[in-house]
């Protein structure tokens, strides 16, 4: 009898586990589709993108700092260029990404030095990786998904785990707008599970079938009061010459 009870329990547990695992697997499948859809929605594979970004960095230690940059993206080649316009003392400094390589350019020494996509962007709460093409589906897998309300928007809250150590954060939670599928908010966690940064993407603009965030807010969760706000304007999808995404262009535009 005991053997039978044990067998029933075993069967029930196995069935429950199988159903649960199947559910989790289905959620993961659906989640990975969602991540792929977010990437499709936010990567402009048919167009180049140019824009002017104003970055306000609020730091409890250093006060308020304003930077203006020009940004150029070519998502189909996983390439971008960012050039500082303001303030004057760093005018011309820039970041150029080609394939897996990211250079920082200093116009004073006229030197390109390698830098990491994981590093913070010019002492702000933004990271270099925030400006490249969207690679959620490559960088993360979904470990949980629930419906959630964010303000007046219906979203799904996805819990993500990194697929490699190449990414800036090992785990994330993202709030994904139901339609169109766009990330509205993201929480980034360290390996120990500590909340490091919260990002907000409250507005987007549309170009063709793709969407671009026109405002990003990055809140430092380690240092209370530190945050960085990026607003984008003069957004253009005009085709850029291939030479824009080269070291030669960076050298030519600089004084």
């Amino acid at each position, binding site marked *: 009898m005991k053997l039978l009870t044990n067998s029933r329990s075993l069967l029930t547990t196995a069935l429950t586990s199988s159903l649960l695992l199947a559910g989790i697997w289905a959620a993961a499948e659906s989640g990975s589709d969602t991540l792929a859809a977010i990437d499709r929605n936010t990567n402009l594979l048919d167009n180049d993108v140019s824009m002017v970004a104003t970055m306000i960095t609020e730091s409890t230690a250093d006060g308020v700092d304003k930077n203006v940059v020009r940004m150029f993206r070519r998502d189909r080649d996983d390439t971008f260029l960012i050039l500082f316009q303001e303030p004057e003392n760093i005018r011309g400094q820039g970041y150029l990404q080609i394939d*897996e390589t990211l250079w920082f350019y200093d116009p004073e020494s006229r030197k390109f030095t390698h830098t990491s996509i994981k590093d913070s962007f010019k002492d702000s709460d933004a990271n270099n990786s925030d400006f490249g093409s969207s690679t959620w589906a490559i960088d993360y897998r979904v470990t949980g998904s629930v419906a959630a309300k964010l303000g007046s928007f219906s979203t799904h809250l996805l819990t993500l785990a990194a697929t490699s150590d190449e990414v800036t954060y090992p785990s994330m939670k993202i709030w994904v707008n139901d339609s169109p599928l766009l990330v509205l908010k993201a929480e980034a966690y360290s390996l120990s599970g500590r909340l490091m940064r919260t990002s907000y993407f409250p507005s987007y603009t549309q170009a063709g079938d793709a969407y671009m965030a026109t405002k990003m807010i990055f809140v430092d969760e380690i240092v209370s009061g*530190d945050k960085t706000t990026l607003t984008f304007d003069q957004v*253009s999808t005009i085709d850029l010459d291939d030479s824009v995404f080269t070291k*030669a262009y960076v050298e030519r535009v600089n004084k």
Partner: protein
Amino acid sequence: MQPFTTYSSRTGLALTMVLAVGQVNAGDDVFGTPAKPGDDLFGGASLVTDVIANEVNLAEDMLTGDEVLNWSGSFAWQSAGILIDQPTVEHDPQVQSELSGNLKLDARPNVDYRVLLNLDYSATADGSSSLLREAFADFDLDNQLFIRAGQQTLQWGVGYFYSPADTLSQDSIDANDPDQDRIGTMAAKIHKPKGTANYYAYLLPDDTANSYSIAVKGEWLLGSQEWGLGVVRQANNELNLVVTGSVPTDLGDLFTEYNLSLGETSLGLSAAGSLYDRSDELLQQFTVGMRASQDIGPDSSLSLSGQYYYNGLGYTEPTWSTAANDWQSLTLGREVAEQLSQQLAALMIQLADPYGLPLSASMLGLSSLTDGSAMLKSTVTLSPNDFVSTALSVTTLMGDPGGEYAPMGDLSRYELTLTLGSQSF
């Protein structure tokens, strides 16, 4: 049974937690605190605004600028009090003051052409001086070939303190101040970007030799690594084959250079202590180093740079240090290697804004592993705002007189510097 019960309990708990998370209203939870950004961020009806179709080509716009002629520059007034402590020599305290800065004129009549003048100026109580750092014209051929002609800063190597691959620049890197701007070299450069690769050709006039140096180089990306291969024929007929590499790692950026040369004009030093012609010898130089930076707290970072340099043009026996008088009579009027030591090393640690304070600190160590001389420089800088800064530095030279980094033997130098009005415009 126990394991399954436990497993069921755990999965049940996990399921409960998942469901519980599902009930969390993120909007209410996160946006309920007024101090948090996000209040009203997602309260609107529409997430997506109208398509913006700005037809201005921002990339071309940058090549011309707002005006044809643009001035920019910098200004700083600096005063330093210096004390030198040397065991055998008495030194009076010194005060040195200088007004210095930089002026740049950038003329961009159209997207295909520009001229840049870059001038340093300084004035002291003894007089004033200026130095033309760069003066060049940029133009392109069909946006395919990019040409820069004139006095220009060349970037041929990747080394931070030492760059044996850079056989072209007239002003080599100063290991004492590796971030210092370098004076341009007269050259014509042709740059051809192709895919992820870059190809360069240089022509450098040499008035002394009444000839030209010619150099070609390619740079290729291999994953996240960048490797370069170059060949140089110097105006004095010396040949160089150079390899450069930049390899990003989890710890930092690894860099390396190799230079194989034939036709060296400086003399070799034999084991017997005599100088000899080595123009038909293949000589090698090699360097490897790393640069790494790590955030160590709110707004503060720690940077580490280190480099080892095997200088095949240098000498194994430190005669210049162990027998300085013999060395002077031996080398008088004869050409010897510019960097005497065969093995050199450098290390720098920089700390920026510790604990959010307007402070930075650095420690630089340079050493000749051949003659045992070394230089250690520690600097602390206080910058309460953009216009005023104060720096205290202590430099210690160690080694026998004549040593690479201790030409006057053991010595300590203390310098307190006040900088006012520092500003770029």
